[in-house]
């Protein structure tokens, strides 16, 4: 059974993974992070949850009459892929998995598939 720390380790085992973080969407706080990467985790966590919130907001306005439920969100930069995946839990949240992937060494389809299976192990 996955705990929060083991979940981050599991996410980091995805081929091409550079950084992983678990975020609490309500408060914008980093819950668990993979090793020291030199990133300011507190600030990036707050900003990334804000990104997800703004995206939800934009999508809600773009598709009127629909309840928006995000499965995952992908941003590709010139250096890599960034994946955000909100997880529904019984408790507050959602809990969000953030993963940064190397552009050259990663397989996006595989990474998304692995993230999906990890999230199904983390929640009931």
């Amino acid at each position, binding site marked *: *059974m*996955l*705990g*929060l720390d083991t*979940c981050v380790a599991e996410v980091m085992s995805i081929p091409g993974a550079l950084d992983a973080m678990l975020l*609490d969407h*309500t*408060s*914008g*706080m980093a*819950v668990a992070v993979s090793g020291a990467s030199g990133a300011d985790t*507190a600030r990036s966590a707050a900003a990334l949850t804000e990104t997800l*919130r703004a995206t*939800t*907001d934009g999508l*809600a*306005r773009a598709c*009127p009459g629909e309840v928006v439920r995000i499965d995952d969100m992908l941003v590709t930069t010139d250096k890599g892929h960034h994946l955000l995946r909100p997880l529904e*839990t*019984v*408790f*507050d*949240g959602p*809990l969000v998995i953030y993963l940064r992937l190397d552009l050259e060494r990663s397989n996006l389809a595989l990474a998304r598939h692995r993230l999906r299976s990890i999230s199904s*192990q*983390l*929640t*009931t």
Partner: protein
Amino acid sequence: MATLDALLAGLARERSTGALRLGRNGTIFLSDGRVTYMECAQTPSVERMLTARGRMTETALRGLQADGGCERLLAEGAVTRGELQYAVLGVVLDAAFFLLPTGGTRPKFRPGERHWLGGQWYFDVAGLVRECARRRACLAATWPSADVDTLPVRPVLWLPGHAVTLTRVQWEVVVRADHKATPLELAKQIGRSGYSVLLAVRQLAAAGLLAAPDPGRATSAENQPEAGPLPKRARHPYARPPHDPEAAAQPLGPPVTGDPTDLALLMRLKKALEELS
């Protein structure tokens, strides 16, 4: 008199294990100097969250608590370890947010005591204090007036526009608001953290979706004893959302703080405390 922060920092330095009881407000459980669990009378507990969402019945939970504890809860498969850790994390941060500022309620430390949900996640005291300050800043940035935190939540009956987007928590708040329940009472009903409901209520206030507080009910005598000669607080001139046509013009620069009522009360408190010590 030592503040709660200082007291906790001391217990952390001594690597104490046990429970710090704060009168009726709540209890902080420590293990080896780190906080493992916090109970706060004002915010929903993990048990409350499990039952409010229909995940477990109260009798089943009491049975677990008496026999088997966490390991049996996980073995029965109602929640995964990750979910339980996340729940404990959320509940402790939420309790800390409301407990840490209270402080002066004759804290009493009982060594050796443990909570049945302790040991899921460990918090260092400095980190808790830092996170609480961050949350307070977030609330203030959303909507500066703390009035809406304690008053009954009263959504406006008519939307001041054509359409609005609500987040999940905002939706739950609007649906459950019966014009009597305060944000923290709603939090217990919905089974969400007090902070997330406070944040949603302040967002609603900022969007102009809450009715202006009813001055008659706000200071009703039923739950607050009449304070006699205490001066009445003047309504903030900009307590209405900025786009409300009746709102006063926003002053340039940050809002002026230092309400004379607050200052007078603080002076009297300081004098009373000095006389006590």
